[in-house]
């Protein structure tokens, strides 16, 4: 009885912890939009283009700096890249084309958000696969414990329990 309660409590705690971790991860994803400070003032013909400029320069990583978007960095190469992004936007290129243009020169390093390709399958798939594996393991363990503790006592065990509780053997019955 006590065993069942403990294991039930444990599995509930675990479930809550997992849920909390999941929520936290989702929240962090939602707010992880990098802070962007445009260094130069640029005029675009439409607010949509201006917004695309902001989001592109926020998601392209400065090759010279350890961890800064080109929109945040004062390094000369970041400035050149911002200028090129603005020029390509004015030429009417798509976001994808502009990213391809930068990757062709500076490598995948400049993408803060790596693309889903054959080469990056492990990168994208491993966290999901590990989470799944962990979930399956926890579920298996919880189920096995529950089953083990819910097992009926054998006659021998019941006699021993009664002896320990100093009860007469006949009063034993279902809990």
């Amino acid at each position, binding site marked *: 009885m006590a065993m069942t309660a403990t294991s039930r409590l444990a599995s509930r705690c675990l479930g809550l912890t997992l849920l909390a971790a999941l929520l936290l991860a989702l929240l962090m994803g939602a707010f992880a939009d990098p802070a962007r400070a445009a260094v130069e003032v640029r005029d675009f013909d439409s607010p949509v283009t201006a917004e695309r400029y902001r989001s592109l320069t926020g998601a392209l990583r*400065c090759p010279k700096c350890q961890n800064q978007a080109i929109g945040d960095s004062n390094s*000369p*190469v970041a400035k*050149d890249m911002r200028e*090129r992004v603005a020029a390509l936007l004015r030429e009417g290129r798509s976001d994808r084309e502009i990213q391809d243009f930068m990757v062709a*020169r500076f490598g995948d*390093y400049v993408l803060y958000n790596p693309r889903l390709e054959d080469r990056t399958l492990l990168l994208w798939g491993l966290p999901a696969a590990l989470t799944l594996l962990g979930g399956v393991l926890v579920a298996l363990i919880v189920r096995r414990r529950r089953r083990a503790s819910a097992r009926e006592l054998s006659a021998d065990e019941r006699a021993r329990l009664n002896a320990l509780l100093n009860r007469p053997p006949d009063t034993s019955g279902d809990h």
Partner: protein
Amino acid sequence: MKRRLLLAIPLLLFIALAALLYRGLSLDPSSRDSALLARDFPAFSLSSLEDPEARLDASLLKGQVTLVNVWGEWCPTCKQEMPQLLDLAARDVRLIGVDYKDSREKGRAFLEEFGNPFEVNLFDPEGELGFDLGVYGAPETFLVDADGVIRYHHTGYITPEDVTETIMPEVRKWQ
């Protein structure tokens, strides 16, 4: 016994992860493979530092293995690197310079003071060629084979050891 082994799995995983991360500690995050490896040297049309009227293009790099060194008068490491470049020139390696984001006067003065190992210097005041090469800081050195394909990329300072241990073997490999 089997359970014991199962229990050791987390420990083994931890050791593997620790080893991986420990190795990462000693890696240089600023040295990455160029995105241009195994690609054609980017097209360009530039004058030379020596002759403002000259028009040089990528055909300059065809026919023999060439080291292209991106430098600038404003770059202190480039000055330290010059003895190694002179050494490479003395070993019959063909060197072509790219005077990157520099003025003609300063570039010429630099070569007069530190020596000129270059067959010719492309003059790239706006850094256009540098951008197409994915240069994010001078000095950077590219090895181009006889077909004009980039085969090796060295980021930053070339030490005297690099000359004998890395650059020369790479040059011989592609000759």
